[in-house]
């Protein structure tokens, strides 16, 4: 097993208890050798920031399943910077919009909000493993 020595914070934001993707992500990232702090479901922006600071995280990965994610994440990038983590990667994945909206447009919107990458209903989650490995290797 390759140990990446990278510290990641993951969780599901908002009043959302749909945890399946989160559990899979946790297990997958651990298998890939990351040091994962999973703050679980039903979490708020502060929880992500606090955990990231506490763990000196290299990346923060936000999930949202019920489509209400957008309301919660506006200030995440700014807060990370304020709290001294301006180099941390910030990802978001899940159902990023309500209704059927084109993937590219949805993902671009989140990147504009300061996310390093965004994944709206991705067909594969393994892509994310490749992407994050690449980003962190820089």
């Amino acid at each position, binding site marked *: 097993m390759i140990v990446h020595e990278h510290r990641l914070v993951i969780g*599901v934001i908002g009043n959302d208890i749909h945890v399946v993707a989160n559990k899979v992500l946790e297990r*997958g990232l651990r298998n890939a050798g990351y040091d994962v702090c999973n703050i679980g479901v*039903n979490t708020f922006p502060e929880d992500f920031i606090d955990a990231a600071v506490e763990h000196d995280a290299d990346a923060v990965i936000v999930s949202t399943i019920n489509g209400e994610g957008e309301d919660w994440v506006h200030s995440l990038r700014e807060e990370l910077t304020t709290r001294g983590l301006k180099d941390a990667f910030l990802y978001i994945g899940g159902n990023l919009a309500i209704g059927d909206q084109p993937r590219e447009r949805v993902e671009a919107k989140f990147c504009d909000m300061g996310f390093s990458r965004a994944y709206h209903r991705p067909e594969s*989650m393994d892509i994310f493993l490749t992407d994050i490995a690449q980003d962190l290797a820089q």
Partner: protein
Amino acid sequence: MQIPSDIFIKQRETVRQSPLLAEVDAADGAAFLAQLPESRYAASAFQNRGEHPILQPRGGFALFDDQAQLTHELDVAGADFLPLTIDSHTRQNDYERAATLLEQCEERNENLLNGYPLLAHGALLTRSLFTDINKPVSLRHGTPDARVLVEAALDAGITEIEGGGICYCLPYSRSYPIDRALLNWQYIDRLCAYYSTDERRIHRESFGPLTATMVPPCMVVAIQVLELLLAAEQGVRSFSVSFSQTGSMAQDIATATALRETTQKWLDQLGYTNVDVRLVFHQWMGAFPVERIHAEALITQGAVTAALIAADKIVIKTRTEALGIPDSNSNADAVKVTKFALRLSQSLAGCTGLNTDEESAHIATAANTILENILQLRGIALWDRVASAVRTGIIDIPFAPHQENRGELWTVRDNDDAIRIADQGKVPLPESFLKREQQKLSNRQENVGLDTMLYDVMLMVRKSYL
């Protein structure tokens, strides 16, 4: 032990002090329930049920008028029980937020809640939803502390209450303390028993699907038996155990047998002789196919399974499950297709005995081992033993969001899509059981990537089907 009357009365006084229950006096509520026709009683409906499983949809809208219309449409479509599904805020006891959002809904004539905010509407108005209805109504929610909610539901004439201390806490909440949830549901069981007479029993139902994601049948069976025993202890005498379609029809059939047998064994063992136990089957509760053709085939096959296991009730899904809260059209279609499929399969009702005996014995043995281990734990009562079982990981539900849930139990599917335990975590299981599980997995590849892991979860949504 049953909560003694005096203590219960005191507890109840406290609960009834909630201003949300003020509009109906407890005695009025009791009188209203008592005068309802028998047709409104779930327990009676079970006793009088015909050949087919009883058919029950889900459904909850924010606005009264929408809910009234849905109720009417489901009634006409042929639902046997009508649902009242509650919104998330009410479930999390955030009654104020539910009320505020309801006001906004009414102003804007929009649906901002994912269910019916019963406490915001109040029991009196809710009664009028069912004035012209001659069928039982079932309360569907997911609330760790449903004491006030259930009081209001009974005031409103609802005679079937879904939930339980384990099943409405671990899958539905992140941090509601499991011991408090168990105590809250002990109160609810006691309340339902209190309201039950010999002829008119308030029916309780557990929620066996749990997270609906890779939960092994032995764990479902153990939890169903525990919630039944907890309810029986409080005097409940009409109770449904339940489980959901797993993706392996053979395993579902085996689970039904194991569930019936294990339930009976433990009721006998603990000396509960007067409980009418029913079996409820949920159509597939996991990640649902997006394509209509697959969604409807899945619904149909669930109905065939329900007929085959002679389920007493089937709780149905709609073809739009993967897309969002179903509208009443797709709800009515779901009733229609399920009804037709049940009709097509009615001849199976007598045909138990498909040779899944080995599998069902396998499931039952494991469930019994779990149960025996729990009953041997130290504790002041069953609820207390159950709470420690959760904390120590004897009860462990895959994919539960709850922080007290260990999450060490790990399951994968075998070649026939049956759910098998790959890592027992802290769950006590017989050697022979684990050996057979491993055998079944012998030619399964290791899960490494995320997609292979999701492969099992996404059984009904695999790309290979498109």
